[in-house]
Every structure is written in C-alpha cells, then in structure tokens.
C-alpha cells in the first residue's frame, strides 16, 4: 500500500465470536479512500460479518473499527445513524422492500432523509436508475425482478443518498456471466465517477481481479494476506496461491481431518468411525 493513500476505514485488533466459535481473531487491516478493496476468503469465513462490524450493526468482543476517524462502536445510536447516511450497502439478496416498486425503493432513502420536492426527487431517482440501466423497470415490483436486476436496483438505492463509501456483500454470487459482467462494470464505473470508496466481500476471484485495487484475504479468523492485486498474483506458494488459483489441495487439505485411511479400513473397532 503506498504511503500517499489516505485511509478511510481502519480495523485494529478486531476479535469477534459467535457463541464459542471465533469468527475473527485479532484482525488488523486498513481500507484506503477512493479505491476498490476486496475482502476475500472461503465461504463461512465471516466476510459478511466484517461488513456488519464496520457498519456498526454488530459489536466486536474487542478491538476497534474507525471510519473517518470515528470509533464506530463508541458512537451513540444517533451518531451511528448519521454515519450510515454516508454508507451504501448492497446486500447479497438485494434486500429490496417487497411492498414498494422499483421506483419507490430507490426513492425510499431520499424520502426518509430529505424534504425534496416530488419533481426533483423523481429526476434524481431516474438518474440513479439510468446509471444501473433499469430506468425502464421503474414500475416493476421486486418479485418481478431477476436476481441480477434486484441487485442493480439495490445498487441504485445504495447510491441514492450519494454516499462516500459503499459495501458490496458477495455481489457476484449466483449470477450468470452477463450479469456478472454488468455488475463488474457498474462497480468500477460508480467507484470512479462518484469518487466512492468501495469495499467488496467476495470469493469470485476472476471478477475481483478485474476491478479490485487492494485485496485482503481472510481465513479461519485470521488475516492471511493484504496488498495490491499485483502482489497477490505474485504469491506462488501457500494459502493465497491456493485460493487465488483455486487449487483443490494445498494448505487447505482436500480431506477432512481424521485418522489415517489405512487405519480406518483395517480397524476392527468400527466405532472409531463415529
């Protein structure tokens, strides 16, 4: 990471557990302003949890998260809601309000937080919908949209209040190649044209490699690697190499840990299988 980049989000010694399971164990990372940072890791490594911790929806066991110099988890409820106006979040499912149509979903944050006259509001919403290419779908209900379209509407809603940062939760999961291409283009264009800071949680290596400036890899609660895309690609051994190249065997073994194969087959005491 170059010295000149300003840090927007800083995570220091973050530990978080669910029940007795430790999701994050002493993680420290920083997210630079104006760039696309991808947080990668296998399924179940708590990437979504990390976004919720940054947005203050979850509280860590220890450590701190600062956004624009503010310690998120020490803010009052009111202050945290003020901070969230500067954040947009794209949920995996889109999370559109099911009782509102596309137009009203995008207009929702504007209606809640501003007192704009209806004509101006309409113009703004149409601009946001145009940006994601769905101006023509403004009358549809969320149940009439495909998964990819829902995500694009959610993206339009996410940028409705002109946030400074936007979080993407697994934006490419379960999408066809065309939709993936559209989303890749949208994330990149929006980041550059709106001067956003984008944080993307994903395990789709190809798509991430196309647009991310920085990459952090987490696994089993630890931060394994952090650096620019080029630095990641240079890794030729270890976990990062296995993850980026999608190798079936490596530091993450193919076999679930158990007794040796021979021992298992030859043992007369079958209870060891249990």
């Amino acid at each position, binding site marked *: 990471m170059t010295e000149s980049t300003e840090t927007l989000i800083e995570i220091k010694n973050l530990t978080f557990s669910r029940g007795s399971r430790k999701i994050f164990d002493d993680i420290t990372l920083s997210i630079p302003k104006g760039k696309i940072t991808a947080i990668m890791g296998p399924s179940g490594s708590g990437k979504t949890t990390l976004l919720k911790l940054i947005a203050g929806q979850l509280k860590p066991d220890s450590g701190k998260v600062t956004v624009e110099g503010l310690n998120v988890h020490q803010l009052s409820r009111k202050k945290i809601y003020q901070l969230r106006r500067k954040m947009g979040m794209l949920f995996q499912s889109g*999370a559109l309000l*099911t009782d509102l149509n596309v137009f009203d979903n995008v207009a929702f*944050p504007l209606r809640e937080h501003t007192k704009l006259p209806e004509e101006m509001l309409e113009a703004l919403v149409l601009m946001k919908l145009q940006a994601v290419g769905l101006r023509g779908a403004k009358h549809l209900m969320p149940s009439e949209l495909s998964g990819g379209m829902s995500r694009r509407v959610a993206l339009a809603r996410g940028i409705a209040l002109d946030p400074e940062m936007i979080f993407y939760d697994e934006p490419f999961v379960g999408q066809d190649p065309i939709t993936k291409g559209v989303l890749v283009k949208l994330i990149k264009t929006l980041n550059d044209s709106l001067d956003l800071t984008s944080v993307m949680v994903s395990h789709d290596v190809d798509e991430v490699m196309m647009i991310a400036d920085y990459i952090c890899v987490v696994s089993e609660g630890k931060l394994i690697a952090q650096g620019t895309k080029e630095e990641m690609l240079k890794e030729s051994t270890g976990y990062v190499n296995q993850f980026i190249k999608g190798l079936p065997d490596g530091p993450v073994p193919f076999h679930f840990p158990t007794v040796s194969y021979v021992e298992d087959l030859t043992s007369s005491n079958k209870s060891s299988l249990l």
Partner: protein
Amino acid sequence: MSLLVNKVQNLLQSLGKGFLSNVEAFGRGSLFMWSLLLAIPSVFFRFDLLLKQIYVAGVLSLPIILMAGLFIGMVLSLQGYTILVKFSAEEAVGTMTALSLLREIGPVVGGLLFAGRAGSALTAEIGLMRSTEQISALEMMAVDPLKFVYAPRFLAMIIALPLLVLIFNALGVFGGYLVSVSWLGVDSGAFWSQMSSEVDWREDVVNGMIKSVAFGFLIAIVALFQGVNAIPTSEGVSNATTRTVVHASLGILGLDFVLTSVMFT
C-alpha cells in the same frame, strides 16, 4: 457410581442452562419492550405508517371478527334461552348475552382470533423481513427499524383490537337479538330494556375495553418479539409464528383471569 454422578451433573447443567437462557430471553424481551415504548412518540410524526398498519391489522381482520361475533352471539342466546326458559326468565336472555360478551367473551375470543389472524401475520412478516435482510437494509439506509417498522405495528395493534372487540360485541348482541326475539319469540321491549338497565357503562363496557387494550398490548409484544428473534430460515419463521399464537393465546387466557379477579370481585 461415577456414571450416576455424571448423569446428575449433566442434568443439573442442562437445568441451569435452560434457566439461564430463559432469564436471558426475559431480559432481552424487557429491553426490547422498553426501547419499543421509547420509540412510540416517533409514531405520531409518521401518521401515514400508523394508518397503514391499522388497516393491515384492523380492517383486514374485520371479516373473521364480524362472522365470529354474530355466531357467538347467536349461540350464547340460544343456550341462554333454553336454560332461562325453565325459570320463565327468558326475557333476561338479552342481559345475559350482553354481559357475557362485554365482560369476557368479546375481549377474550376477539383477542384469540386477533392473535391468530394479525399476530401470526406480524411475526411472519417481521421474520421474513429479517431473513431477506430488509431490516438490515433499513439500518444501513439510516432508517431506524424500531421507529419505521416495529413501533407503528405495535401501536396499531393496541388501537385496532379494542375497536374490533367493540364491533364483535355489537354483532354478538345483534346475533342474540336475531335468535331470541326474531326466532324464539322473546319480547323485543323486554330484551332491550332489561339489557340497558342491567349493563353498566363503567363496570361492564369500560372494563371490557381495558381488557382488550391489555390483550392488544400482549399480542403485539409477543408477535413482535417472536418476529425479531425468529431464526431467519423458513423453519425458524414457521416456528416463531406458531409460538406467537400459542404464547399470545395462553397469555390472554391467563391475563383474563387476573383482570377478571381484579375487576369483577
């Protein structure tokens, strides 16, 4: 021997665990109720949200309340008549119907129906909003779900149930009139005059209304709490919906006994 000790230990452990998790749930419920009550004033600035929820909880429950009220009034007066006629007191059937409805059956049956119709729907709605991340999305859009989702629904239920119970009672009395006067031939004048002289505004009508407000409060808090704490899967939401109906119904019956013993003894 050590096996026995182990078993006893396990039993004690699970007992303690169960007790602790119940205490924790109770604590979380109380905290939730407290934050809900604090969010209520905000509803008065968002009348549109409240009106919509009163429509959803109240107006949409009308058909079941109307039908149930009518039939229960008819059955009550039919049963009442067959007993009272033995003592030649069949003119008291109007009083009997009205008093049973106003004091007990209106609030209780109305409440049970409301828990099944509106309470379960509320739990399912909130549970699904959570499982589809809509609640999270609201939080991220800096819209407080307490003020935007929970508080309007909570208040709407407390307002809707007493109104529904009033309608239930009125339909019940009308059903009683149909059966006893139009069908069984009780004198119409006696039916109404005995009723109006025996039924007391404060003692019967107001007490019944107080009951229905209390039941509305109970149903709303149970339904919301179950929805908010539902495990966000289809099975979790379905279990939470069932729990809402069971807990709210039992709660109504228990609370009714307490309220009756305070009000009418």
